[in-house]
């Protein structure tokens, strides 16, 4: 029995022996992307779970050339690596960044925005686990409304995070980037195809992949993939691309699964009131209204 997706990527493992929690969605994203890009990928990872679990001398878990950047410096280091290798005469390589949501949407956005503006020839992958996980689950700009984190505690007075999630995908698109995409580790073939596509485009590419964190989300380790599917199926996340100035939706669930059921599976949302859930449902519907109005459609699943 042959698997087309598996055959399309390297059989080698490039992210191996790492110390991520069992069932970590971020490590799945990094692993899969590197199997697409192969041994001439040069990975840049800022401070965050993936670098913390992968680079403890002498336990070094990347088989390809890889380097940790400062927390704010993923994109600027990518720029330097790409320019440096080019200046040295190398042609056949891919400079790829893997940054968390905090490292991307908060402290790293200056450098990311600058790299897109220069149209540097890099791939920037944000593995989004929706909080600062490496430091113990603090709210980031990509923490969704209602989520309990250690800096947005849920109590009688405040029900967790009061702000919606920043839309990094559309922000990247507003830079008129050559290619941007959203993905989820729950739909790994779609993610793999997007990394593949990105690797063939010149200029800056941004891929935003939802990567559940069992530790931070309060789910069992074996639920990572299921929950990563469910967030798409219930419509709180969507799979899409931006290319040549156009948005394309890649997957239109026939009917959304129940948002409440998605939320209540997770420790971080346990406290939500009916009112909170109504707000979340409404904002989902508003988002999809916008998507349906302005996005094209091309199924990729």
């Amino acid at each position, binding site marked *: 029995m042959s698997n087309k997706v598996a055959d399309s990527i390297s059989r080698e493992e490039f992210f191996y*022996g790492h110390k991520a929690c*069992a069932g*970590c*969605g971020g490590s799945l994203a990094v692993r899969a992307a590197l199997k697409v890009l192969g041994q001439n990928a040069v990975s840049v990872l800022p401070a965050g779970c993936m670098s913390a679990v992968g680079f403890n001398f*002498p336990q070094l878990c990347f088989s390809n050339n890889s380097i940790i950047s400062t927390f704010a410096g993923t994109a600027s280091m990518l720029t330097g690596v790409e320019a440096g290798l080019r200046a040295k005469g190398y042609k056949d390589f891919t400079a790829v960044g893997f940054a968390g949501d905090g490292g991307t949407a908060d402290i790293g956005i200056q450098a990311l925005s600058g790299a897109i503006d220069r149209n540097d020839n890099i791939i920037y992958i944000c593995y989004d686990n929706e909080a600062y996980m490496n430091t113990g689950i603090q709210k980031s700009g990509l923490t969704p409304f209602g989520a309990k984190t250690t800096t947005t505690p849920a109590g009688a007075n405040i029900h967790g995070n009061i702000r919606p999630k920043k839309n990094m995908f559309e922000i990247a698109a507003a830079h008129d980037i050559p290619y941007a995409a959203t993905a989820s580790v729950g739909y790994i*073939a779609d993610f793999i195809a997007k990394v593949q596509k990105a690797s063939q485009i010149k200029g800056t590419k941004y891929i935003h992949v939802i990567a559940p964190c069992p530790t931070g989300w309060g789910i*069992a380790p*074996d639920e990572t*993939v299921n929950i990563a599917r469910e967030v798409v199926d219930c419509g709180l996340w969507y799979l899409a691309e931006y290319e040549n100035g156009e948005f394309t939706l890649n997957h239109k669930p026939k009917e959304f699964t129940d948002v409440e059921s998605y939320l209540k599976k997770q420790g971080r949302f346990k406290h939500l009131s009916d009112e909170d859930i109504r707000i979340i449902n409404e904002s989902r519907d508003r988002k999809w209204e916008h998507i349906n109005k302005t996005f094209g459609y091309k199924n990729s699943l």
Partner: protein
Amino acid sequence: MRPHIREKKSFTFTEVPENTSFEAGYLTTVNSGWRSIRPVIDTAKCVGCEQCYLYCPDGVIAIKDGKAVIDYDFCKGCGICAKICKIGAIGMEAERK
């Protein structure tokens, strides 16, 4: 070749690098101690569809002779593979006690 555990695990003063650059993929500790449950492949059932291979966050599953095999040195026992395998060829068993 799949990354593997190395013999040399500790580094003396002179062996510590002069800078922060070292051989990629150098592994000195295993992750087997993390497991309290372990995935076990029922080779009779496994059809080699590679779904478990694609979704294992640790990349410890390979397909050999059409069947899934697991590198128990580095499997953490997360159980994702067992849930992914639609035909139930992977069972989770208690590690030891």
